[in-house]
């Protein structure tokens, strides 16, 4: 056996690089910056990259606030990191934001799986997670402040609309990813269907499963005439294409962020006319949303056309700015605790992007008013078909 111990070139290079990194780390810990640091990690790449546009809108809003002189004399340094929709990376990125960058708050964060991974950590550090895009009850904690309506209230809203419009003659179906969001939607739809004596067919799928023919065939076989789809945006077109394959034409319902313009333009028109989408913010272009349109045009000219996801990202930022304003009123310094206390004073807070936000010290789950829209292929955007309506109340 050889006893010559030689380190490979690779090992040597790594030793030097690690040494350099560590010394940089030791030297590079600078003092307090002038701007208030905030940030978030999100799926810039990875399976859920469709949600990234919300982060761009949040950032456009922060930059817009800075351009207008900041809030109570403070300006913001907004740090965005790519977590690839991988919870382990989300935890690492969040640790970097909190431990290294010492951010005041996470703003405009999205993704239930990632939020679950960081939940206990940010709670232990007392870092508020403001304007979170997740309706999952499981992420609810003393420091998470979602702006999405709870998944349950979204599911209930969609089910109620389909039933009221008489689309559920052959029964209601739910095609859902078997994660926490999917299950919350499911239990809400179950309770609404029970109240209205509608037959229910439930079909789960795995994240990223390409061929959903079997799932859709199950729904067709059961004679279901209206289907709610719950999952990340890329699951939506695979479901529709599977329906095309099995010659199935029910009424579809999904949340608006599933309607990605690039994807919608390739789906067959006879399926598109049967699709409904719900959202809970103003549509970009509605009265009072001029700031959003001009800031997006300035900072992200390539991102078109406008979608409700823009408003959702922008709304995260407005909620944070309002909390920051309240926390720093009268010259008080911005602290994490002050932001949390300020958020707990939100009672039916509204602006031109979002309305009816109420947080209490006990619960941060929202049941916002929502509306229904359809895709308009000629303008390549969503068009609303109902006014804002409150979701139905669920039984105990």
């Amino acid at each position, binding site marked *: 056996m050889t006893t010559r111990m030689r380190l490979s070139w690779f090992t040597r290079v790594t030793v030097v690089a690690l040494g350099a990194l560590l010394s940089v780390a030791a030297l590079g810990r600078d003092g307090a910056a002038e701007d208030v640091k905030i940030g978030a990690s999100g799926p810039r790449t990875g399976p859920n*990259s469709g949600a*990234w546009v919300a982060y761009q809108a949040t950032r456009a809003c922060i930059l817009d606030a800075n351009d207008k002189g900041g809030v109570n004399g403070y300006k913001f340094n907004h740090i965005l990191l790519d977590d690839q929709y991988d919870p382990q990376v989300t935890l690492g990125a969040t640790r970097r934001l909190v431990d290294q960058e010492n951010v005041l708050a996470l703003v405009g964060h999205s993704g239930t799986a990632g939020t679950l991974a960081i939940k206990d950590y940010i709670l232990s550090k007392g870092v508020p997670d403001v304007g979170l895009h997740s309706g999952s009850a499981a992420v609810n904690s003393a420091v998470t402040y979602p702006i999405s309506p709870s998944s349950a209230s979204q599911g209930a809203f969609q089910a109620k609309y389909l039933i009221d419009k008489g689309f559920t003659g052959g029964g209601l179906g739910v095609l859902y990813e078997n994660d926490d969001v999917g299950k919350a939607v499911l239990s809400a739809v179950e309770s609404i269907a029970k109240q209205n004596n509608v037959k229910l067919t439930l079909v789960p799928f*795995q994240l990223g499963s*390409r061929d959903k*023919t079997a*799932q859709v065939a199950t729904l067709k076989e059961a004679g279901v005439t209206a289907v709610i789809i719950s999952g990340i945006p*890329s699951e939506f077109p695979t479901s529709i294409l599977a329906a095309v394959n099995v010659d199935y034409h029910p009424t579809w319902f999904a949340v608006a962020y599933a309607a990605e313009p690039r994807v919608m333009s*390739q789906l067959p028109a006879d399926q598109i006319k049967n699709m409904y989408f719900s959202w809970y913010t103003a549509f970009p272009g509605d009265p009072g949303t001029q700031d959003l349109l001009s800031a997006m045009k300035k900072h992200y000219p390539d991102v078109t056309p406008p979608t409700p996801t823009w408003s959702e990202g922008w709304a995260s930022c407005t909620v944070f700015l309002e909390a920051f304003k309240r926390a720093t009123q009268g010259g008080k310094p911005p602290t994490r605790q002050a932001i949390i206390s300020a958020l707990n004073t939100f009672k039916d807070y509204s602006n031109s992007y979002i309305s009816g936000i109420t947080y209490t010290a006990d619960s941060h789950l929202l049941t916002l008013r929502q509306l229904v829209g359809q895709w308009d292929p000629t303008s390549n955007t969503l068009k609303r078909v109902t006014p804002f309506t409150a979701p139905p109340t669920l039984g105990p």
Partner: protein
Amino acid sequence: MINLVVAGLVSGSIYALMAVGLIVVYRASRVMNFAHGTFVGFAAFLALSLHTSSHLPLWAAGGIAIVATVALALLTEGVFVYPLRHASRLELLAVTAGVSLVLSGGMLQLFGTQDRLFPRFAPGTAFRLANSAIPLQNVTTILATLAVLGIIAALFYLTRIGVAMRAASENAQLSMLVGISPKAVSLTSWGVAGAMAAAAAILVAPDVPLTADTFSNLMIQSFAALVLGGFTSLLGAVVGGYLLGVGLNLFSFFVKSDIPSTFILCVVLGVLMIRPEGLFGRKESLRL
């Protein structure tokens, strides 16, 4: 029910095309080409970008994508794989995995990260069978796949270089006897694999939203098809691909719809426990 089988055959077509591409390379260079899925992704993104941004007709965009992917495969062979032909299998594997990582990172920069969808080039219904409408797109995909596989079979069994390619996996000297250098055999194999990757891309793309990692998932299923068939057998890979495609759809429909990978694992394990060399494999040492 018939639609389920047809859709399963479409999935199976993709697995079969990708698995055969993997085998062609494996026979020539003794390596599982981890970059094959990224080749497929590259071809799909390139064709779609040319079609939507440069407004080329679909056939022209597809043609350019095929040429570009063949070039990419040849480049990989020439720069990384052939110079390492005396390295261990594991080193070769690591290099193709490296190429795959570099390419997927590069593709994110080139093509962006937003989901996109390829247009369906054959809309409408082909024919009706027992009260089910069979979409023309599905029929086209299956027939086109069989045509591509037929061409590959003809290449392997009817041409001199094909004979050399088949021989190469067993004995490099044997191909010299046919009068063809091992270098030429290796290059041809990678070129063929590149073309097959592009073909798989064009056929699968209308059925799946393109994201940067769509094709790494498909790689795992193709890998399963390959192993099921016996690793080096072309026929085996095709049979394995179609078995998995149809079997998975039937299992998801009749039994349980949210454990596809577990089903595939059980099928592969079950077959390998009975036949450790796969359905059509021969006993040979495939040690690392």
